[in-house]
């Protein structure tokens, strides 16, 4: 299980952050991702593996200011 934005999600097999984000339909140029309290640089999405017990915050930005 990984905890994403406060909800537990099953993690069926080891997956990278980038694959997970694409599966879930996130637009990667409109988000910021924190894993276990640390920002994940965009350049590392491809190599970052999600592990059981990870806590992620995925913040999506919408237009307006």
């Amino acid at each position, binding site marked *: 299980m990984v905890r994403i934005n406060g909800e537990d999600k099953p993690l069926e097999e080891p997956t990278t952050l980038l694959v997970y984000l694409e599966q879930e339909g996130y637009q990667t*140029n*409109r*988000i*910021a991702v*924190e894993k276990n*309290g640390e*920002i994940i*640089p*965009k350049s590392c999405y491809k190599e970052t593996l999600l592990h059981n017990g990870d806590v992620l*915050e995925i*913040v*999506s*930005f*919408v*237009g*307006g*200011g």
Partner: protein
Amino acid sequence: MRFTEREIQEALCERHTAAIQEKLNRGRVAIAGLGGLGSNIAFSLARIGTGHLHLIDFDRVDLTNLNRQQYLMRHVGMFKTDALKEQLLEINPYLDIRTDCVRVSDENVASLFKEDTILCEAFDVPENKAMLVNGILENYRDLIIISASGMAGYGNSNTILSKKITSRFYLCGDGVSDSRKGPGLMAPRVALCAAHQANLAADLIINGTAGDRL
């Protein structure tokens, strides 16, 4: 009517107490984007005497901005940095206000905010918001960013919230109301979100943290 710095300080201390005002005088807040969010954040922080403000925007005031942004007819065509600074100095001429009339990009994000302790992200375009938040969290160790997402439309005041993501990253807004869908940005609801951001900045300046209550 011209007031001395001492008269203004006494007036602020009368409202806020001297202990709090001393902290606000030392506050260093950058505001990136001087539209509906940024201009309102700047007015709030200038009014309470936040000592050091850093205003960043590349754009000029447009007539369509006047539905929600803190500019007047006479400012149309002026750079937002100049139009906003002029007004803030009419509230308090002793504030230290620095302006940068530039577009924030991956190239300058790592150097632009070195003097600041808090940054309010007040951009319009989601890709720019994400670029700034990622750029700050990756390039600075102590700078706190207060970002905003979701404040378009009207009504639903109570869905605008402040949230602590980490000790250096706060997020205000409802998270979903996109300015490109539906009725667009309007003064009352944009000002609500801007007030959340300014209020968080005040809390962080005065108490050093806002996290325990979010």
